């Protein structure tokens, strides 16, 4: 969606614009990446280099996953001109259900005993099912009974937070199953070798996607960008992916912890042995979810209809699209993502608490909006929302490292949200998109 072909002639900037136009890079995405880099550099300066260490980058990524997962679903919700205020509460209900499955239902009632290998998958499936059903129910109230999404999910915000409380009798439930905990972040990572394998596969997939897109354009005799432009984009992607892997691999597992894991297997650790954490499973999960959501958004009918219905609900209806069923599907996807997010959030804490996910609805909406999703509907990207979540988390972690108190952090985040939307409005006015 670039308007650059018709850009007004502005002599001073034309060369810069032409370069971007040739590369066919979304300038909005570029702006966000730029903002993210500035945030990182500023905090790195303020913390004397502590912000951009492998350890902090590792922590930043695992802290972002939970909100980022839900933000991808919030894009669909907002694109269809709806809103979901209940995601934090829904996360809590799913987390409570999964915690009870792991600690009571499966081990005691079903007699599997604690730490049975089936516990984690069955608990997760139950949680996802619950999320899907609750989400679909919200969608049905909104689509078929035509109750505004704001009201339905505001009600949901109260209901599901307290259903979670009811399910657990208001208690903290834990520790959770150790396989389940692998999805929390630092407790489950790929290790150095598999991280490189994952990185290599990601590079191959990216390059393949670039080549396939180009082939398809050539086949239909559309204009393609020059080969050097493709090479530049492929090169940047490759460096970014492998650089990310290298950084996460550089975060070393503390030697005491390594020693213990050797002892557990009845071995002694060789002198000078080190190992990096590598990519956390939760981040792999986010990447997989992101790819699925991007494919859904851009390559399936469902995604096409979501954007069409957001752009002009009447036109969508007249084109034969079942917009009410579409609303149910969108909220069901949101519910599933809340459940997946609940897995990551509770696994990271290693237990379920009453206040898990509190205020997440606001963070998730903010991430989607900072990522360029327009509340007026029809516009938004999945990768933008993830980047939005990352920017918010960087701001918050960075301020915490600098020693800003939590209330002041929230003031800054609030201001940034409003400012980001204003900048977006200015941007859209100038590009006319």
């Amino acid at each position, binding site marked *: *969606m*670039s*308007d650059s*072909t*018709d850009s007004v002639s502005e002599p001073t900037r034309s060369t810069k614009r032409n370069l971007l136009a040739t590369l066919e890079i979304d300038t909005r995405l570029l702006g966000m990446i730029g903002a993210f880099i500035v945030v990182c550099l500023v905090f790195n300066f303020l913390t004397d280099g502590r912000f951009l260490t492998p350890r902090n980058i590792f922590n930043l990524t695992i802290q972002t996953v939970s909100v980022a997962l839900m933000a991808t679903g919030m894009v669909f919700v907002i694109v269809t001109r709806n809103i979901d205020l209940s995601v934090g509460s829904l996360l809590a209900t799913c987390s409570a259900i999964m915690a009870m499955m792991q600690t009571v239902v499966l081990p005691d009632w079903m007699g599997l005993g604690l730490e049975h290998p089936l516990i984690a998958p069955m608990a997760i499936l139950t949680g996802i099912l619950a999320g899907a059903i609750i989400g679909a129910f919200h969608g049905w109230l909104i689509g078929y009974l035509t109750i505004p999404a704001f009201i339905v999910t505001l009600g949901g915000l109260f209901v599901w937070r307290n259903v979670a409380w009811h399910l657990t009798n208001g208690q903290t439930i834990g520790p959770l199953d150790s396989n389940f905990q692998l999805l929390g972040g630092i407790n489950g990572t790929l290790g150095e070798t598999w991280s490189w394998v994952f990185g290599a596969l990601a590079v191959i997939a990216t390059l393949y996607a670039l080549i396939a897109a180009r082939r*398809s*354009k050539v*086949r*239909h*005799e*559309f204009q393609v960008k020059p080969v050097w432009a493709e090479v530049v984009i492929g090169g940047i992607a490759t460096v970014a992916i492998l650089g990310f892997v290298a950084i996460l691999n550089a975060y070393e597992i503390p030697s005491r912890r390594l020693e213990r894991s050797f002892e557990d297997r009845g071995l002694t650790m060789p002198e000078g042995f080190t190992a990096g954490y590598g990519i956390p499973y939760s981040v792999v999960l986010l990447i997989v979810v992101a790819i699925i959501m991007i*494919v859904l958004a851009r*390559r*399936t*009918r469902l*995604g*096409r*209809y979501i*954007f*069409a*219905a*957001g*752009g*002009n609900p*009447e*036109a*969508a*209806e*007249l*084109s*034969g*699209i079942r917009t009410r069923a579409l609303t149910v599907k969108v909220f069901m996807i949101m519910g599933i993502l809340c459940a997946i997010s609940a897995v990551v959030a509770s696994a990271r804490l290693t237990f379920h608490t009453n206040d898990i996910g509190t205020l997440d609805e606001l963070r998730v909406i903010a991430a989607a909006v900072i990522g360029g999703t327009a509340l007026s509907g*029809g*516009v938004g990207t999945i990768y933008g929302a993830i980047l939005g979540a990352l920017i918010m988390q960087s701001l918050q972690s960075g301020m915490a490292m600098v020693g800003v108190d939590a209330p002041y952090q929230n003031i800054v985040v609030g201001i940034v949200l409003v400012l980001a939307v204003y900048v977006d409005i200015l941007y859209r006015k100038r590009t*006319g*998109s």
Partner: protein
Amino acid sequence: MSSEIDRTGTPLVEMRNMRKAFGGIHAVDNVTIDLYPGEVVGVLGHNGAGKSVLMKMLSGALPRDSGEIYVNGEKAEINNPRDARNYQIETIYQYLALADNLDAAANLFLGRELTTPLGFVDDAKMEAETRKIMGRLTPNFRRFNTPVAGLSGGQRQSVAISRAVYFNAKILIMDEPTAALGVEETRMVAELIDELKKRGIGILLIDHDIHQVKALCDRASVMKNGKLVGTVEVDKVSEDDLLGMIILGKKPEMAA
């Protein structure tokens, strides 16, 4: 139009005793019209006469209160836009029914996307088809990759018209298709109507321009306050007769 239409066989479409009320307003009140293959029937009337509502009942956009629709002599169940499309009824709506945030190809194929063998939408193929079909209507059109919000009224209209042509409409409803168009584009739409007519497509054309109706249509059905004033062959009446029907609701004596 000089070409004689054979009206002895079964009509392509027949709408019998159609009714639709909104609250107390009888938007369409017991209207019966028909349309034969290769024929253009103008639907005329003052603002608010009920023309669009009548057409929307045929295209499945509005549910009817009562009345029957026959396609090729057989009773048709049309309850939503998908049903109408299955009868190869295509509609170009008065208020352009396009999703502003999508490009021309996405709009043209909306609801009927071309897909790859794996079931993913095939954007490249759809764009190629769009380029072909739109090339005929607006040869200068280049903006295939921008959201249609950025297009002119005429360009948007040609997306809507292309859609109807591409999907082989048998019955085409055009609700003021040239209202947003310039002289040149209007001429092109007129040519297109002639061409579609030759292919045996039946067209229901809503238009306020009497001159154009005289030029393009075979018959004209005039509505006033939701009721049908009458249907006349345009060659057998004068422009003044048509105006009299529209404004006064008076049917000229000689017309059958």
